[in-house]
Structures are given as structure tokens and as C-alpha cells.
């Protein structure tokens, strides 16, 4: 019963936000439209996609007992590779097929960067947060090294059309986000790899003693999140066509906040993809809602930071073992 309660908690929070901002919006909003209007909500899903897709990967990595702080940098680097590679001379004769090449190279880059993270974590034994704290910096350095402080652009209208296409009013980013959610959910609940992730995160020694190969498993999860970060970049930048070297900075904060908000434990072994989806929606709702009542980006940053801390506190309170605990 308890896990369902914990997971439903995030949806309760979402509902609260909807109510709060709808009401507050009536008094504080500068626009005429209601907060909960259909277009606005569809937009919400679309805007959740960049963070959301990455958050799915972060859920897996965190359930496993690790963390990845370099996703923002991977996001930016893959976007640059995608946009720039389409201009490379070798691909000159491909016409619009070059879009596919760009996408594939971006995805491959994401997987490669994730592989590097995973291998370092496995083979050196250095904790994932230090490894990815370092690669957050290092990969960002590579981003700058590519084109200095200039943006990288490539406006290919076919690409934009695909990226901005919609099916029955639901746009591409939303579709990709939902499909990824379903696939990652299947991975975590239905496959051996996914179930092992829970085991490793919950009790690594038991997993090792049971013969699960922890090292390669962790590497796979880093490759997965790298892939998803790249996918997110592909979806977003195919539409926008231009990436700045500072893009994606602090994405990891948003992603982690969404994942922790959804109930995944920092210590690993517990978490849910669906709840992360809820967490992403909750965060995006917060952003939109605050904007709707007139707050600026600064205020949003402030609130997000505080929410993360509040969630940590709640998580700790709910998980205390009471009298079993020593006061150390």
C-alpha cells in the first residue's frame, strides 16, 4: 500500500498546483486566458519534453544507486554535433537525408559520452557524483572548444517541419516524451535489466553475491541516459535550429529535482518512472504557473532550488525508522 501512496503523492501535488495557479492566476495574471486552458496544457507537455526525456534516464541511474550531473553538457554537445555535422563536406551530396545522419551522430555522441562516464565510474571506483561533476565541466569545455562562445546554427526547414509536426494536435516532442516514458517504464518493470537495477541500488552486496554483474550494468545505464540526453537535444534543436554553448546549464538540477520530487530515493533502490513523469509535469507546471502569475526566471530558479531542499527534507522525515534510530 505504502509505495502506491508515495507515488500518488506527486499527482496530488500536481492537482494542488493546478488549483493554486488557476486561482492565483485569476488575480495576478496579466493575460486574459485561464491557466488551465487546453492549449496551455498541451503546451505544458511539449515544454516538459526536454527535461522529461532526460529525467527518465536519470530515474534509472538513480534507482541504480548512481547520479549523472553531466546531462546538461551532454545535451548541448549533442545538439552542436547534430547541427554542425549536417554541414560537413562529406555529407554534402545527401540532400535531406543528412538530417538522419545528424540525428544518428548526435545519438551516438550521447551514448559515447555516457559510456565514458560509466567506464570511469566502474573502473576507477570513484563515486558517480564526482565523476559526473567532473564531466559536467569537461564536456562543457568540449562544447566551448567546438565553436568558442559562438552559437552553432543550422536551419534546415525539412528538419524543422518534422520536429514541429503534430498528430491530432499533439506535437512531436510530446509524442517522443510519452513513447520514451512507456519504453523506460517497460524496461524498469518488465525486464531483467530493470529489476536488477532495483536490486543493485537497494543492496549491492546481495546483487553481487547473486551473480549480477554490477559494473557492466551501471555502464549500460550511463549509456542510456547519454542516449536520452542526446534524444532530448535532437527533439528540441531540430525545431530551434540554433544552440548556444551555455545551453543546458543546470539542466541536471531540474532533472534531479523532478526525479526526487517523484519519489525516487537518492540512495537508490527505489523509484518509479511514472512518478518521475509526474515530477516533470509538476516542475514544468510550477514554471508555467509562476510565469502566469508574473514571476520571472529568477524567482523560478529560487523556488525550484527551495523545492528540491523541501523534498529532501520530506523524504528524510518519511523514511525515519523511529525508535530504531540512533541519535548519531
Amino acid at each position: 500500500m505504502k509505495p502506491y501512496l508515495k507515488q500518488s503523492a506527486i499527482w496530488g501535488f500536481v492537482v494542488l498546483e493546478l488549483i493554486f495557479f488557476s486561482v492565483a492566476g485569476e488575480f495576478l495574471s496579466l493575460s486574459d486566458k485561464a491557466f488551465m486552458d487546453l492549449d496551455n496544457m498541451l503546451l505544458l507537455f511539449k515544454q516538459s519534453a526536454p527535461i522529461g526525456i532526460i529525467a527518465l534516464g536519470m530515474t534509472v541511474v538513480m534507482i541504480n544507486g548512481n547520479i549523472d550531473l553531466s546531462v546538461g553538457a551532454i545535451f548541448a554537445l549533442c545538439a552542436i554535433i547534430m547541427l554542425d555535422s549536417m554541414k560537413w563536406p562529406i555529407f554534402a551530396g545527401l540532400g535531406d537525408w543528412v538530417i538522419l545522419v545528424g540525428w544518428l551522430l548526435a545519438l551516438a555522441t550521447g551514448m559515447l559520452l555516457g559510456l565514458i562516464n560509466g567506464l570511469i565510474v566502474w573502473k576507477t571506483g570513484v563515486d558517480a557524483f564526482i565523476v559526473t561533476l567532473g564531466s559536467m565541466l569537461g564536456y562543457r569545455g568540449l562544447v566551448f572548444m567546438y565553436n568558442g562562445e559562438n552559437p552553432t546554427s543550422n536551419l534546415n526547414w525539412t528538419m524543422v517541419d518534422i520536429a514541429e509536426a503534430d498528430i491530432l494536435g499533439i506535437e512531436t516532442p510530446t509524442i517522443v516524451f510519452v513513447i520514451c516514458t512507456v519504453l523506460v517504464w517497460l524496461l524498469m518493470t518488465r525486464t531483467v535489466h530493470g529489476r536488477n537495477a532495483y536490486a543493485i541500488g537497494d543492496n549491492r552486496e546481495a546483487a553481487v553475491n547473486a551473480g549480477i554483474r554490477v559494473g557492466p550494468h551501471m555502464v549500460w545505464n550511463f549509456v542510456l541516459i547519454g542516449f536520452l540526453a542526446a534524444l532530448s537535444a535532437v527533439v528540441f534543436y531540430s525545431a530551434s535550429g540554433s544552440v548556444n554553448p551555455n545551453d543546458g546549464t543546470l539542466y541536471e538540477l531540474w532533472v534531479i529535482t523532478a526525479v526526487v520530487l517523484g519519489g525516487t530515493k537518492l540512495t537508490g533502490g527505489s523509484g518509479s518512472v511514472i512518478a518521475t513523469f509526474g515530477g516533470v509535469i509538476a516542475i514544468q507546471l510550477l514554471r508555467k504557473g509562476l510565469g502566469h502569475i508574473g514571476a520571472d526566471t529568477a524567482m523560478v530558479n529560487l523556488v525550484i532550488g527551495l523545492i528540491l531542499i523541501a523534498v529532501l527534507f520530506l523524504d528524510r522525515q518519511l523514511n525515519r525508522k523511529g525508535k530504531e534510530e540512533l541519535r548519531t
Partner: protein
Amino acid sequence: MADTRAKTIGQFLARQGILVAFVLFMIGFALANGRFLGIDNIMGVVRSSAILGVIALGVTFVVISGNLDLSVGSMMSFSTIVVLDLHDKIGPALAIPAMFAMTMALGALIGFLVGYLKLNSLIVTLGMLSAIHGLTLTYSGGKNMDIDDKAGTWFSFFGQGSVLGIPVPILVIALLAILLSLLLSRTPFGRKVYAVGGNGVAATFSGIPRARVVFMCYLISAFCVAVAGLLQASRSLGSQNTVGQGMELDVLAAVILGGASLLGGSGTIFKTVIGVLILGFIQNGLLLVGLAFYVQYVVTWVIIILAVWLDIAAKRGRLLSPIA
């Protein structure tokens, strides 16, 4: 025989590898660009490292006590902006203490969350990084801060003045380093910091007020950030509100380079100062050989990973991790 010798060399490299690498770097840079070892350049490096160094001194306390502080960069932006803003509103004599109070209040908040509520310091300070950044932006209204009457204020003394030919920032960091070194290495409080970081449970079992010690470390860190903000504001008399962005990683790199273990319980002020200088010289050297500033990011990344890896490897006795 050869086996034990290889092992001894391995252990030596693990412990002193950083210094060895550093010496190699220095030689390389000196060969690549003659100016590298010139006295002007050296003074320049020391001076520009001072601000980072001041922050690193405070973070040393936090790291030794077994925690992290990723918020120092945005906290420094906050301090710089606040003191510049208040300078014109209430005059420098009041602005400086007010800024210190506000910055240390932030440090106290973090100290409370990590020390007393026992929340994870990585995530808390990551969250605070964003929150303080937001706070700074809100405070400054998104604009850059500038002092109106730049020539007519004594405020510039801290960042630009000199005493007996020594630039004030260098004096400040030297003084602060000496005081903090005494605090850390020679007082009961310092001993308690090492105990909490070395084995927090045993520290509690020995009657050490663990929560209070962690709290105090964050206060010290915030104090140092405030000093750094003062120096920065005073140097340029105007600032963007993102001036401190990214500093937390350089600070962490410097502390790690100086040999402090991120697991807590080891490190000294002196070693951190060395780490700051090493980092400063490497970054300077990279610039002088014509590499752009972002190459530093990649180099810092490699340095952090290598340094922590070798530290862990030396402790467990094997280079590669035994995870299957």
C-alpha cells in the same frame, strides 16, 4: 624484488603524483612560453588566484568535515552584487558588514540543513546554487551593478590597493590563510572538524557535537565567500551578476589537488593554498601557450578525476576497482 619495487613506485606516484604531474606541466609551459616563469607573470597568477583561493580556504573546512559546498559560486555572485548595491545606498562602511551578515545567513541556512537536518550536502548545495542564483537575479533586477562614483570611494582599497608594495588581495588571503590554518590545526574546534569528517559516528560517540561542527564549517565557508565577494567588488567596482558562476568547481578542484580527500578527515589549509596555486599556474600556462579558457575545463576535469582516483586507489591498495 622487481615486484615490490614496482609497488613502491606505484604508491609513491599515487601519493605524490599530483606534484610530479605539476612539475612536468610547469616545465612544459616554461619551455613553450618564456614568459611563464617571469616574475610579473607569477605575481599576476598569485594575485588572480587570490579570490578563488579565499573561497577555497573556507571550502576546505567543509570538505574536511565530510561534506561539499557547490553553492559557493552563486553565493559569491550574491555577495559581490549586494555589496556593490548597498555601497551606493548606505555607504561602504555599512554595506560591508550588511553584506557579510546576509552572506553568512545563507551559510547558516545551509549549515542548518546539512548539519542539523542531516540532508545530503551535494543535493542541498546544488539546490542552493540555483536558489541563490535566483535570489541574486531578483535582487539585482537582472541588471549589472556599478558603483556611481568610482574614483571617490575608499572601497577600492581592498581590491586594488597595496600595502608596502604588496597587493591587498594577496595580504588578505595570506592573513586569512594563517588565521584559518591556526583555527584548523591548532584549536579544539579544528580537531573536532577532523574527527567529524574522519568518522562522524565515532565523533558522536566521543561527545563531539557533530551537527554544530558541520554548521560552523558552513558559516566559515560563507564568511570566506563574503571576503571574496568584497575583494571582487572592490577590484572591479562593478560586476555582472554571474561573476561567480562556475567557481565552485575550480574551488573543488583546488581543494582536491591539494590532497584533501572528498571523503573527509584529511587536508590542510596549506595544502589547499598549494592546490590553488597549482590550478592557477596550470590555467595560466594553458592561456600562455595559446589555448582558450575552456580548454581549462577539460584539463580541470581530468585533474579532478585523476586526483580522486589516485587517492581512492592508494587507500584500497589497487589501481582498478574490484567491482565485477
